[in-house]
């Protein structure tokens, strides 16, 4: 009789040990799943807009707006020569040092001031391209930026470029989804994006 009780005890004990082991395994698996799902790429496009040329900016916004139509989440990071593209023609900022003033004068003030990367021919090429685009009904960069805003494209501007070129936040365009950031923010977004582009 005593023996039988002992045996049942042992069985219960080993059963509960088995349960514990399974529980532990389940928890381990859950943790693995969590870390895996964190690293799964989303239907997202992360784009760096490094260039400040009319043709490249145009391409960047066409891809961005097209991607939203494809149901993708879109983030654009403007850095270096891409930064002045997002200045607002009608705004100005004071309190700049000499270098800041110089950059401010020499770099395009907004997307209306950018030039073609090739065949600019002292501005004549850019002018011709713009009139051709109008004739062919191609959306202007201004229109594309506005559309991108409506479609929920998020724009990030590199704070370091802003600082380097002496641009102030108050002279940038009004855009519904504009944030200033550093490289880590881009990498965070790029890491889980299926598509990444550098333009």
């Amino acid at each position, binding site marked *: 009789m005593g023996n039988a009780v002992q045996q049942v005890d042992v069985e219960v004990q080993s059963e509960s040990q088995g349960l514990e082991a399974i529980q532990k395994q389940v928890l381990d698996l859950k943790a693995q799943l969590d870390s895996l799902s964190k690293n799964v790429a989303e239907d997202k496009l992360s784009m760096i807009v490094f260039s400040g040329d009319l043709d490249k900016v145009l391409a960047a916004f066409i891809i961005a707006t097209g991607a939203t139509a*494809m149901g993708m989440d879109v983030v654009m990071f403007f850095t270096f020569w891409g930064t002045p593209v997002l200045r607002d023609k009608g705004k100005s900022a004071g309190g700049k040092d000499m270098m800041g003033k110089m950059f401010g004068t020499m770099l395009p003030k907004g997307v209306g001031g950018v030039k073609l990367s090739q065949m600019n021919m002292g501005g004549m090429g850019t002018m011709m391209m713009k009139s051709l685009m109008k004739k062919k009904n191609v959306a202007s960069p201004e229109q594309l930026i506005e559309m991108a805003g409506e479609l929920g494209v998020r724009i990030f501007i590199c704070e370091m470029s802003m600082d380097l070129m002496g641009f102030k936040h108050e002279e940038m365009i009004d855009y519904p989804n504009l944030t200033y950031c550093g490289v880590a923010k881009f990498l965070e977004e790029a890491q889980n994006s299926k598509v990444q582009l550098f333009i």
Partner: protein
Amino acid sequence: MEAIKADKTLDLKGLPCPMPVVKVSKGIKEVEIDQVIEAVTSDPGSLADFPAWAKTSGNEILKTEQEDGVIRFFIKRKA
């Protein structure tokens, strides 16, 4: 072949890339699921773009017609 009845028509003629795809993705949200929109474009690029968009967005192109430089898509909203 029986004619497809569209619940909504989008005139996208004269619009180049990326407008046809952008507008059709907006326009399809204006009908209910399983309803059909008719999208009319004059952009030859949309012959490749519309199927790509439909596949990615999970909608179905029922029929594509081409006539005198005008392309007519009948698209069923599925998603």
